[in-house]
């Protein structure tokens, strides 16, 4: 990063990409797009019913034909539910949780970070010390605690993860706000008598938005893993809601006899998180505001 920051001002394109870097980016972007498409529209095409079981069809391997004559592309689970439909529905649930968390946790972080950074002083101290205290506490432990208290539901998972992640956003936004509030255009706005809410909205917000979006992209992948972890532990979504974590947990007992139950959703989870991670990383390289000053 150090040599990049030393690059001459006004460079519109970042450093020359590593050989293959572009390909990685496009593969990651393509896979992410596929994930989004499946999460948004998949359940419409392959409907999943979390309640309906069919025990005569349990533990069928991939590509089997069920008693109703349909093909189970990825096999069936321990109560005869179609695994493909479950994975597709799981994609939607994970996206819902990730988006919800970014919206709630990221929104709260954005607001509190801007307030803390812009006003400084006691407000800043209170907000940021609160964040520090929370960060000092092991994240997943806090999540388990909250999830156990609130009980399993989709909304509660979002609340838990939002509580867990707002600090990450707040810290980032505060930093960008601090860097922006002393700039000439903010000063001039203030001198012209523009109100504080308007300054925050019109002058500070656009400056903090880019790093915010980059961080959010990286966080989406982490949220998906966090949701799967909670569900794996039985603290995430309720048993009748499809989740990759729940499916993997169910399949654990069958690793030796029906490997597909845990393995296939596990592979999908790994690929999605990897793709989002690469995408976020590359976006950071391309959009880093420090390269565009």
């Amino acid at each position, binding site marked *: 990063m150090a040599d990049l920051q030393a690059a001459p001002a006004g460079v519109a394109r970042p450093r020359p990409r590593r050989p293959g870097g572009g390909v990685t980016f496009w593969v990651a972007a393509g896979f992410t797009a596929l994930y989004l498409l499946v999460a948004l529209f998949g359940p419409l095409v392959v409907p999943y019913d979390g309640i309906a079981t069919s025990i005569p069809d349990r533990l069928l391997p991939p590509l089997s034909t069920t008693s109703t004559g349909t093909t189970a592309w990825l096999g069936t689970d321990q109560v005869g539910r179609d695994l493909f439909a479950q994975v597709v529905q799981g994609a939607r649930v994970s996206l819902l949780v990730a988006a919800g968390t970014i919206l709630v946790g990221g929104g709260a972080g954005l607001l509190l970070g801007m307030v803390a950074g812009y006003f400084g002083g006691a407000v800043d101290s209170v907000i940021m010390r609160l964040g520090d205290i929370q960060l000092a506490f092991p994240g997943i432990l806090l999540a388990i605690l909250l999830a156990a208290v609130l009980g399993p539901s989709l909304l509660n998972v979002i609340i838990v993860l939002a509580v867990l992640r707002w600090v990450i956003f707040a810290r980032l936004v505060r930093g960008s706000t601090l860097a922006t509030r002393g700039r000439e255009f903010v000063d001039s706005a203030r001198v012209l008598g523009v109100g504080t809410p308007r300054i925050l909205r019109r002058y500070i917000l656009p400056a903090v938005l880019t790093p915010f979006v980059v961080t959010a992209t990286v966080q989406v992948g982490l949220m998906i893993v966090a949701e799967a972890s909670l569900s794996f532990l039985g603290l995430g979504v309720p048993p*009748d809601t499809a989740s990759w974590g729940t499916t993997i947990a169910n399949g654990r*007992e069958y690793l030796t006899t029906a490997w597909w139950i845990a393995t296939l959703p596990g592979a999908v989870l790994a690929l999605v998180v990897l793709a989002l991670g690469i995408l976020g990383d590359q976006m950071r390289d391309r959009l880093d505001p420090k390269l565009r000053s």
Partner: protein
Amino acid sequence: MHPPAAPAVRRRDFLRWTGITAVGLGALGLPGCSVLSGGDSASGGRGGSGVLTVATQRSLDNLDPHGPFAATEQIRLFGQQVFDTLVAREGGQLVPAVATSWENPEPTVWRFTLREDVTWHDGSPLTAEDAAYSVRRQAEADSPLSNLWSALSEVTTDGPATLVVRTEQPLGTVLANLSLLRLLPAGKADAPDFFRSPIGSGPFRVTSFVPGDHLELAAHTTYWNGAPAAGGLLLRSIPEVTTRITALESGEVQLTWPLPSDQIARLRQNGDLRLYDSPSYQHWFNWFNCSRAPFTDPRVRQAMWHAIDAESLVANVFPETAAVAQAPITSAVFGFAAQRPYAYDPQRARDLLAEAGLAGGFRTSLIWNRTQAPQIRQVAETFVSSWREIGVEVVPQELEEAQWLERLLALDWDMDLQTNVTATGDADYTLGRLYTSAANRLGYANPELDTVLAGARSSVDQAERERLYGRACQILWEDAVGIWPIEMRMNFATTTDVTGFEPTPHEAPELRTVNRAV
């Protein structure tokens, strides 16, 4: 973000267990002397040693055999090894143990003559005073077993070797109850930290206990009924079924139960393992909270039952391990009387709901605890799916054991799915303990049933008791206070180097005769 990666922990545990193996070796030759000699640590769990590692699914968190968890399988297993009882159950018969003989001079008076050669693990002799203390303690304890002793009026001693038990009414289950009553040393058991490392008089003594993880036992070599065959036992809890079975297959664990039905066929193929099965005292039930609408109406409960296809459940999910239940207790239990099965008939179920004014169905919830039994989630999900067929929407709630138990006992639930073991092998343990209005375990109060159960409990005529329990089975069954879908068979697996293991119909086999070939 996933649970802590296993390898580091595994290795530490591995070292600890091999260390324990060495301790056991020392204990075999030198009782009471725990020498960590390092011995066969390189050979891991397989090296012959006389210490048997037993893995169970549920975790042992507490060592009070009279306490709130006294009825749980893990406490009964531990209690069976560490404590004595006055009377023992052997193949359906009640036989002398610490009590050599007994008489019943009047219907409400029982006199027991005790052995005089029984010593506690600390060397002091066991007297009638200890036995009297233990009966009193159990009767007064905050425990699901206390209810068995509700008719107790007084316990006295007559010299060091005679115990006299008096009951308010005649009590037909005195002997069966005593087969579960663990003897504790009088006075000592009141010390605040006694149950961290309790003293008993059974074939094994406690050497170390890590709640929720493992319990180490060493042989009590001066045991009155013959020193145990093994030098020691290590009782481990491994909640993860796959991990537990893998530990068995790798030889890290030498004895385990229960076995998941789906893996039995595969385990049978494994030449390094021996599988046992026996009829069991364990049955499944889905209780209705009969004090909560709409389960206050028997027609609704019957409708729920008609929606369940128990035969398909047995054929598909428990092909090797269960049969369709015929009564609220299993066929191996004293007092069993076969009832007319509830046919799988969704239309009949819908009709019954309509009769009860719920033609449009209703919404309710089901709680269960995942560590109760392998495959419990599958049974729950299958039921929830079946109930939707008749228009009943059920919210599934899988709870942690502590939370589940708390809500269960507080009657804070609509439906509860679980397994239960009739530990004494006598219907009184299950029917007389759980279904009386006084016990109020499922919000069900039926004066007729109370009379029948009280009659069965107070009769000392076994034929009469059998008839009365048959009637109790019928009332519970026809009133459908719960659904009894299946009864289990007990399945155990050992490695082939284990000798002397006898399967039991309950989950607390006595391991005194079990050993490993060296």
